[in-house]
């Protein structure tokens, strides 16, 4: 039975990686640090898989471990990016409560992206998929970094608004 449990765990792990990653990145919105924490979290998950009870919600359990890593990280590096424990806990809790909604939103994000003009979609691909820094992307785009940040802010706002609208429509239907 142990073998079956292990296989189930592996499947849960792979299937839910993106939720754990997003959990971390939304609490610490720095790609480099988030990647590091995601790495540490993955390791902990694999080291403690036996303690996972299959009756338990996997995402909740895995995000709990991720949360501890984020909190420890903030304690060690209390910069402007950090959050106090109480605020961090509140955000983490709200996030888990909304897990289902966030999955809906993520699905709708795709259709909202498709509605953007091609050049904006490409800009998002470049900015979020860039190898280098935002300054590099700005240079390649022939913009100032400031203008690039401004445009990205606007695009995020447009997308967020679009997702919210579609979600409301779906709920009415």
């Amino acid at each position, binding site marked *: 039975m142990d*073998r079956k449990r292990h296989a189930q765990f592996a*499947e849960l792990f*792979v299937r839910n990686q993106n939720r754990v*990653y*997003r959990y971390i990145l*939304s609490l610490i919105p720095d790609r480099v640090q988030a990647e590091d924490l995601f790495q540490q979290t*993955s390791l902990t998950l694999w080291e403690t898989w036996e303690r996972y009870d299959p009756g338990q919600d996997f995402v909740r359990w895995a995000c709990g471990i991720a949360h501890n890593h984020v909190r420890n990280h903030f304690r060690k590096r209390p910069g402007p990016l950090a*959050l106090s424990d109480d605020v961090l806990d509140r955000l983490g809790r709200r996030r888990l409560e909304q897990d289902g909604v966030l999955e809906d939103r*993520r699905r709708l994000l795709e259709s909202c992206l498709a509605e953007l003009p091609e050049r904006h979609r490409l800009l998002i691909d470049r900015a979020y998929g860039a190898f280098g820094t935002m300054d590099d992307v700005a240079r390649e785009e022939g913009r100032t970094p400031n203008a690039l940040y401004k445009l990205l802010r606007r695009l995020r706002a447009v997308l967020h608004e679009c997702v919210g609208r579609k979600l409301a429509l779906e709920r009415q239907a």
Partner: protein
Amino acid sequence: MNDELRDLVDARLEGTLTPEGRARLEELLRNDPAAQDWVVTYTDLHASLQWERRDAIPPRRRHWARPWIAAASAATILIGLVLAVGRSGEGARLARTVDAEWVRAPESAALPPGLYLLRRGIAELAFDPGVVVLLEGPAEIEIRSGRRAAVRRGKARCRVAPSGAGFVLETPRGEVLDLGTEFGVAVSDDGRTDLQVHEGEVIATLEGGSKQRLLGGQAVRLETAAREVPFQPDRFVRVLPGPEDPSGRGSRPYNAPRFDEVHLVPALPGVVIDGDLSDWDLSGRFKTACDPPFESYALEGAMMYDDRFLYVGARVADPFPMRSRISPAIESDIYGRGGSVALRIAADRRMGWPARGLAEDARKGRPATPEDVSDKLSFVVLWYYAPEDRACIFLRHGMDFHGVRVNPPGYRGAFRRLPSGEGYTLEYAIPWSLLHADDDPPRAGDVLGATWLVHWSDPAGKTWKGQLIDGVNPAEHGWNFHNAATWGRAIYHPGGRLAPGTVRPR
């Protein structure tokens, strides 16, 4: 949501939040559930955008923080990887062998736990569902269970599907936990162990108990610390034997065609020919590969069109990418032999599909028809000439192969190496005029003929070792250079972003 909160959160995402800003942000969030909800959904949008594009970033650049995780605690060593517990008692299954010679041949395909010595050849071992290990002799492997094995010597390449994540391969210098990926180990006679990850991620546990997460494109030598070594794409690849090697397939393709048709979508405006296909509509692309054990040799092909150009995009998995030393300046029969992508394409709207046209050998003495020598049947070879860093093109026409041109003006092409070093992408814009079709270029709704070919070369980029052909008319037999009717259907779609399921293997 109020502008102040939005500005603070955006500044946080951009890394420009000040200490005062942080204090204010926390104050706004602390007792306001609506503000918390807004931040949760807004930052998740940011995180979703990042997750979807995470794979575009080469693993090494995703985190340049120290890759090491110090885990020297005795507990960690004792626990090791907890996966060691609960051995299943079952072993593996011998799925396939190529020229395999064992020291003691297995009695059946079922391989119970135990030590197996492969003197030479290749053996493919299937472990628990989703786990396949390709062993290259001389090699020693101890099968411990359906999800654990130990390589004592030799080379092993492991392919682990997500369903098989958790497979552990032990080596004399540490063990490798696979999280759904492809990796290889090479263990020398004295136990020196090299590990490289081709795709996905693994966690290596070293003798001292420290762990390292490795991602696709990384290679290390496992010692008391893992030392980075250059990634050698070809080290674990079962390389194509070459046309003259009796163990190979000669000049026959290494794949069974998977597609009867290729899909062309309208070109997106402003496509930049730079070898980066991220600005393409790739909804019509097809993926194909050589048959096992050579399935690492693979092609993803895509085509777009407008009234002036045919666009060709490809991503080719190749252990020796972009090495061709075949000069466009020196006359050759096979410009593509140092590694290339080639197309046979019919651009005659009146001809329709199947294309018609026979080579002299196939006509058996009958005189040539106008179709046999049509300018609108083209053979196009695309290759990268390494010494001059140049994207080249070769064209000839009809089934009599007249009108040879090398690098004529008007086309644009670019190549780019994959970050893993195990392949390349190419991107070309070929004017219809070069295909003698500018008077009446293919239009939306047309179905014409086209076939794709890939040639893989030796490490020197001088002679070809094997080929793949896809996009083939299943109703015809014979060679694509003998008979244009063998070419697959090339469907010119009126609109892009094809619905999922449009590109279907046969």
